[in-house]
């Protein structure tokens, strides 16, 4: 009780005044909470509708309207809490009652006199008259819980906001293209990073391969974070793809040379020691599980390759024998696996993993043949296992030949020769696997370049690059993809290229396009200067057309700029 301790004549009227002030303050607080809630809702709705309207008109980030939507409940709660926490003193409440009841500061004067100047000679008179005036007013009905003015605003804004949800966003075609391009680049980057990380987990990676994979991961990260402009990204990707394929070719060539030399030497020692069967008992217990493991890995690899084939890969996967024979045919001229042959065979990183597992198993078998003498039954079991491993080595012609040689030696009882042949087969598998990994990486990079260059999705580029890869006779990985994508672009009938000579890669010279067009049968009688002068003003407009992929515009622009008489 605030007035406790005051003179009795003050207390009687002052208690009434104080009671009225306390009740009014309590009700005011509830009303403030109620009003704060609606004010917050109105403000939040206004923000949401504003941001939504901006989002519908301008290409602001998608997260803006979602965040603005969160402002509605947040501001509603905040507004209510702020109003609830904003306490007013009893003196302020009394003054507010004065203003509302038009009591001309009677109450607040009485309040001040009672609290601070109770001995003032005017205090009893002032307090008594204030209480009397208060009794004559309907102060109990002063504070009412009713919908504030902001409620109608909040409702209207929410209706407008929900209506706006059905209005489509206005976006320019150029903006959509940029978004598609950025999305494609981001997706390509993510795919490259995932691929590189997955490959880096594989065992037996050479330092070169690890370096290449880390480089892929780095460029993938840059792509996903959009820190590289498309033109620079394309140049970097093309360069990396070329380097990877070059490495693959180098690896395959060197491996083939080594194997050829070793095979020549190995044939001269064909009658080597046949007393190596000491490890057969161990093999007899192990092969069942090992063979199962190998078979399983092969099956898994095959399944994996079946699970994620692209549209273009399916025909190649459906006929592995044909692919293998084509690869073998390309390598038959030098009797070694070539990069082109490997590329033609359509192998990928999964096959490389299977080859690595196969090489490991072959090494174990060779070691077993070296160390233990084998009885005929065990030789027979081993031979049958080797026969079962033959399909797994189909992707490497050299490995298969070495396996067949080992099988022949084993059947002839020449365990030592068979062991060496198995080691060579394992080495061939590893080399092929290494080359295959590099090629797979090269293909991924080329696929990423295709995505960045054309703005298409990863899956679309995968289809395109797979379908184009089989017929690629050039030396640029993914080069045909660019050509394919260019061919797929709509052009006037007379300008569809009949033949493309040279790669179409960013950063490289323009390829020669031969179009059907109309041949000039007679000498021209218009000076070239006049022609170019007439065409020059139209060039920028032509270059700015959205039909030209963004990644190529600079190249095309430079081409036109340089074509001066």
């Amino acid at each position, binding site marked *: 009780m605030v007035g406790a301790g005051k003179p009795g004549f003050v207390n009687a009227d002052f208690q009434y005044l104080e009671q009225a002030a306390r009740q009014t303050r309590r009700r*005011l607080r509830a009303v*403030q909470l109620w009003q704060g809630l609606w004010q917050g809702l109105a403000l939040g709705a206004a923000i949401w509708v504003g941001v939504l309207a901006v989002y519908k008109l301008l290409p602001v980030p998608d997260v803006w309207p979602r965040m603005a939507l969160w402002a509605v409940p947040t501001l509603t709660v905040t507004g209510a809490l702020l109003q609830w926490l*904003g306490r*007013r003193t009893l*003196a*302020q409440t009394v*003054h*507010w009652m004065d*203003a509302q009841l038009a009591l*001309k*500061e*009677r109450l*607040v*004067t009485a*309040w*001040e*006199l009672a609290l601070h*100047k109770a001995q*003032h*000679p*005017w205090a*009893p*008179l*002032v307090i*008594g*008259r204030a209480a009397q005036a208060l009794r004559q007013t309907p102060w109990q009905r002063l504070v009412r819980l009713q919908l504030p003015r902001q409620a109608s605003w909040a409702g209207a804004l929410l209706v407008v906001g929900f209506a706006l949800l059905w209005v489509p966003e206005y976006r320019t075609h150029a903006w959509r293209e940029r978004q598609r391009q950025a999305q494609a680049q981001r997706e390509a980057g993510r795919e490259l990073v995932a691929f590189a990380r997955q490959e880096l987990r594989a065992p037996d990676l050479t330092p070169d391969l690890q370096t290449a994979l880390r480089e892929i991961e780095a460029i993938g990260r840059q792509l996903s974070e959009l820190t590289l402009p498309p033109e620079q990204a394309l140049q970097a990707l093309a360069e990396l793809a070329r380097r990877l394929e070059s490495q693959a070719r180098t690896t395959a060539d060197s491996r083939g040379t080594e194997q050829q030399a070793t095979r020549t030497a190995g044939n001269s020692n064909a009658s080597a020691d046949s007393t190596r069967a000491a490890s057969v008992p161990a093999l007899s217990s192990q092969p069942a599980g090992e063979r199962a493991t190998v078979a399983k890995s092969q099956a898994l690899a095959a399944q994996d390759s079946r699970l994620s084939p692209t549209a273009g890969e399916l025909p190649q996967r459906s006929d592995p024998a044909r692919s293998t024979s084509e690869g073998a045919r390309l390598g038959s001229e030098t009797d070694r696996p070539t990069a082109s042959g490997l590329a033609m065979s359509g192998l990928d990183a999964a096959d490389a993993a299977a080859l690595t597992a196969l090489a490991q198993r072959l090494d174990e078998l060779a070691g077993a043949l070296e160390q233990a003498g084998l009885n005929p039954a065990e030789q027979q079991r081993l031979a049958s296992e080797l026969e079962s491993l033959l399909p797994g080595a189909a992707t490497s012609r050299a490995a298969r030949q070495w396996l067949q040689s080992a099988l022949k030696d084993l059947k002839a009882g020449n365990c030592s020769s068979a062991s060496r042949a198995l080691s060579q087969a394992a080495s061939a598998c590893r080399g092929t696997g290494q080359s295959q990994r590099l090629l797979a990486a090269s293909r991924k990079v080329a696929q990423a370049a295709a995505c960045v260059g054309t703005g298409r999705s990863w899956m679309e580029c995968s289809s395109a690059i797979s379908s184009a890869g089989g017929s690629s006779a050039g030396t640029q990985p993914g080069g045909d993809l660019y050509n394919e994508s260019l061919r797929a672009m709509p052009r006037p009938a007379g300008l569809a290229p009949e033949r493309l000579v040279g790669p179409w890669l960013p950063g490289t010279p323009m390829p020669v396009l031969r179009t059907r067009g109309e041949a000039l049968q007679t000498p021209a009688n218009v000076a070239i200067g006049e022609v170019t002068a007439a065409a020059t003003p139209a060039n920028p407009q032509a270059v700015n057309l959205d039909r030209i992929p963004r990644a190529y515009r600079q190249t095309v622009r430079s081409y036109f700029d340089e074509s001066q008489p």
Partner: protein
Amino acid sequence: MSPSELEQQIESFHRAVTALRAEIGRMLVGQETVVEQTLIALFAGGHVLLEGVPGLGKTLLVRTLAQALDLRFQRIQFTPDLMPADILGTNLVIEGPDGRRRFEFQAGPIFAQLILADEINRATPKTQSALLEAMQERQVTAAGERRRLEEPFFVLATQNPIDQEGTYPLPEAQLDRFFFKILVGYPDEAELVEVLDRTTGEEPEPVRTVLDRSTLLAHMRLVRQVPAPRPVKDYAARLVLATHPDHPSAVPLARQYLRYGSSPRGAQALVLAGKVRALLHGRLNASLEDLQAVAPPALRHRLILNFEGQAEGITPDQIVSQLLEQVPRLRPETVG
């Protein structure tokens, strides 16, 4: 003082005011606002500057008031050749019965209780300034000697609008010492007819004295006891601060057209006048409404226009009106 005694005093005050109004009303037609503001200044112990063109009853009002009050009255007609000594008094050489000559102070008309300074702006600033000390400190320094003036001491000055010929504007320091500056306007048609009736007919009865000096002093002490709550004082402070062009809370007109805002005397005048007005209206406390009612006469002569304001023809009353419109009556936390 018991509540009943207080109520008796308040009742006595109301009777005195009613009697004064009645006597003034017998002589002066209309001008209720002018009369009320004059009475407010009178009970607040403040000086009044009445401004209006000749013939509107300014001098009549003061003369009637002087007659109704039992106070010593002096009238000083300000002219351009009036000298300070003519107001304050001077030492004269007096020859005594013994034939010796000595200086003797001859008091000027300022030594009265109710001074009518008629057409104060027709005197030179030097003469106008002779009133400064008397108005503020209720004393006069003449011939090196300080002499107290008798309480109560009121100066009711009249002046013609400053754009009239042969006028000298009052200096700011002089203006600030006036409690109120009251503008006397033209009567309306009905009032003018009444004026004609009264002045062209029989001589009216002389004004009766209705309030003696001691009662007036008691009433002056009473009105100062009227409580003014904190919100009212806050409002007065806000009003005065809003007249200062450099203050953050200044209203736009003040910011643009004022050179100087009101002095603290303006706030004092607001609250004191508010107290008197509350009591005049039967209330026991000053209110925001009282302050709003007395703000124009209390502030208008304390607002010094800048050149732009004078060139644009802005009047201080326009700025006061904006003050009353824009300065919040309640503090934001009270409004909630």
